């Protein structure tokens, strides 16, 4: 069951790499949030209930509802064009994300560690790098934020892999999640949104030395 969810997650990555509209990104975020919700529930069997609840709440409320909703709100508020405006054609993005997954699998194939379910590892790594790739390959700032959330999801998956032994780390992950997202989104909504309409990274590339 867990594997199915995880594979679903990586499929969502593929979909993300080819989708053009911001709206669909948000939907995928929601989907990933839900998947994480499920995975958390199924994986962390040995954590005490309160902690588990906290984590699941975070995944559900924060990842699956709050953040996407906020984003949506911003997009509407700042009248950001609904296009993702990638630098590369979708086909190549698809190719690259596939390569990332393959790379993750190869990496996993090197390890000789029976304590870890390799699926977690593969999915986590591929999610993280896909998130990075999304940031690199898209123009808009908002897509950066989305990419970052994706990375967070990947980290979440990875932390779940050790969650049973060290719940403390998972909590840390949650903390990071909330903290960083709040910081970034905070700056984003309060400042950038007001200053720049249709925020576009090109407008934020004045500090340079070349």
């Amino acid at each position, binding site marked *: 069951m867990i594997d199915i969810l995880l594979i679903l997650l990586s499929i969502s990555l593929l979909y993300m790499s080819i989708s053009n509209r911001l709206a669909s990104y948000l939907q995928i975020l929601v989907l990933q949030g839900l998947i994480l919700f499920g995975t958390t529930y199924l994986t962390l069997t040995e954590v005490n209930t309160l902690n588990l609840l906290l984590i699941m709440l975070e995944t559900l409320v924060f990842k699956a509802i709050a953040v996407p909703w906020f984003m949506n709100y911003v997009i509407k508020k700042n009248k950001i064009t609904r296009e993702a405006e990638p630098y590369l054609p979708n086909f190549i993005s698809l190719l690259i994300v596939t390569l990332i997954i393959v790379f993750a699998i190869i990496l996993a194939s*090197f390890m000789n560690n029976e*304590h870890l379910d390799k699926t977690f590892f593969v999915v986590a790594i591929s999610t993280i790098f896909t998130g990075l790739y999304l940031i690199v390959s898209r123009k808009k700032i908002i897509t950066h934020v989305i990419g*970052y959330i994706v990375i967070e999801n990947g980290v979440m998956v990875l932390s779940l892999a050790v969650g049973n032994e060290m719940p403390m780390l998972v909590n840390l992950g949650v903390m990071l999640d909330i903290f960083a997202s709040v910081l970034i989104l905070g700056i984003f909504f309060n400042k950038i949104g007001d200053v720049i309409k249709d925020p576009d990274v090109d407008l934020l590339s004045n500090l340079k030395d070349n």
Partner: protein
Amino acid sequence: MIVLFLIGTILIICGLFFNKNRTVNYLLVSLYVVLLWCLGVYECFHLNQTEFTFFTADSLGLLLLLVLCIVAVPALYHGYRYLEKHNLGETPHSRGIFFGSMVLLITSCGVAYLSNHIAVTWIFVEITTLSASALIYHHRTMRALEGVWKYVFICAISITFIYVGILFLSLSMKGAGIEDMSFTSLYQNRLLLDPYWLKLSFLFIFTGFSAKFGLVPMYTAGIDAKDKAPAPAGALLSSILMNLGFVGVYRVYGIMVQTPVQEWARAIMIISGLLSIFVAAVYMTRIKNIKRMFAYSGIEHMGLVVLGLAVGGIGVYAAILHVLLHTLVKPTLFFQYNQIYWIYQSKSVNDIGDYFKYNKTGAILLLLAFFSATAMPPSGLFVSEFMIFQSLFESHHVLMLLVVVLLLTLIIWGFGSNIFKLLFTPLEKELERSRIPHISPWESLSQYVLLAFSVYLAYNPPMEMVNLINNAVRIIQ
């Protein structure tokens, strides 16, 4: 004590945030300074004692804490001078935020030095990001916004990297069946850890810390941050915050030594160090914005430090010494930058010059600081640089040594031609005397003291310091 310190700090910060009165603000900040010094002194007498399970003042942490105590005072003082001069749009509120985040930054750095648990370090790294971003965005301008955005985003990514690294570390511990994640236990059981995960974790943690440390690959946003932050804050960002990165890398590298991973980790660090020096050389020879130039010179020094760390031998000692001295020297440049900016209202070399005519004390200080920052004898950094070269020489990296020396020479050339342009070349059109604010020589006193202190520490190091450094080095050997 730590706990008291933290609580006290939190109270002070809250006070700073909500108080609108200037004198109260002064009082709170000075109170904080006292508190900080108390912590420093206290830790001197409680070396290697764990408190609150997460904090141990080992020698490295103590050393860095002490230089932090030293640098914090002039930084806060110049913060006041800064706010007074730049009083455009300064409200009690913004002042409160400014000092609040200064205090927060200092505290989180100081505590992070002392933490003996990687996760705790990580938490405080996050907090530094928060406070730094508040400082960077102190002038609510478009550029400042851009700077803070980049800084926050890159830092967020990098702390995620660190987190991933920690996860890998925990995986390797899981293999060895270790639960305790404090550095001490890690050092004890370093040989049990699974090399595969250790590799990955070191890679990710190093990459993550390189954002704070100011190394290739993640140094980029730091430059903008130091450029955009007010000079006193910039001074902190380019000294104690970089030290935070150093501590992180140092402790994590400490886990790797004597494991099969060590050689690989060395390679990673050497590559990163060389690239950093190279990048510094690229920009020092072409850049015109002096503040960014100071930032890049920081990159260069950190590159040297990590080289020394990686090569080992006397290099490790030299690396720690270099970090300490750099912490004393680099802020002087930023503090002096304040005075320069007051006179010229610009940071581009093209429209500043003949500083020697307008502010003699500052000019001479700048001259000395330049010689110090480029590690020309009799500057203090020369000693540590000499040792780093020596370690390269001893470990038969002669080719690397030559490359480094060449790059450093180029850096001195670029740095020098800008600084001397700034000091001596007359402007196209003279500044009218009325517009030049009179700057009292006492403004530069703190810088002179810092430089003198760095020279003293370098050439006639007190035995205590030497012992502390040697103890710190033992982590690596």
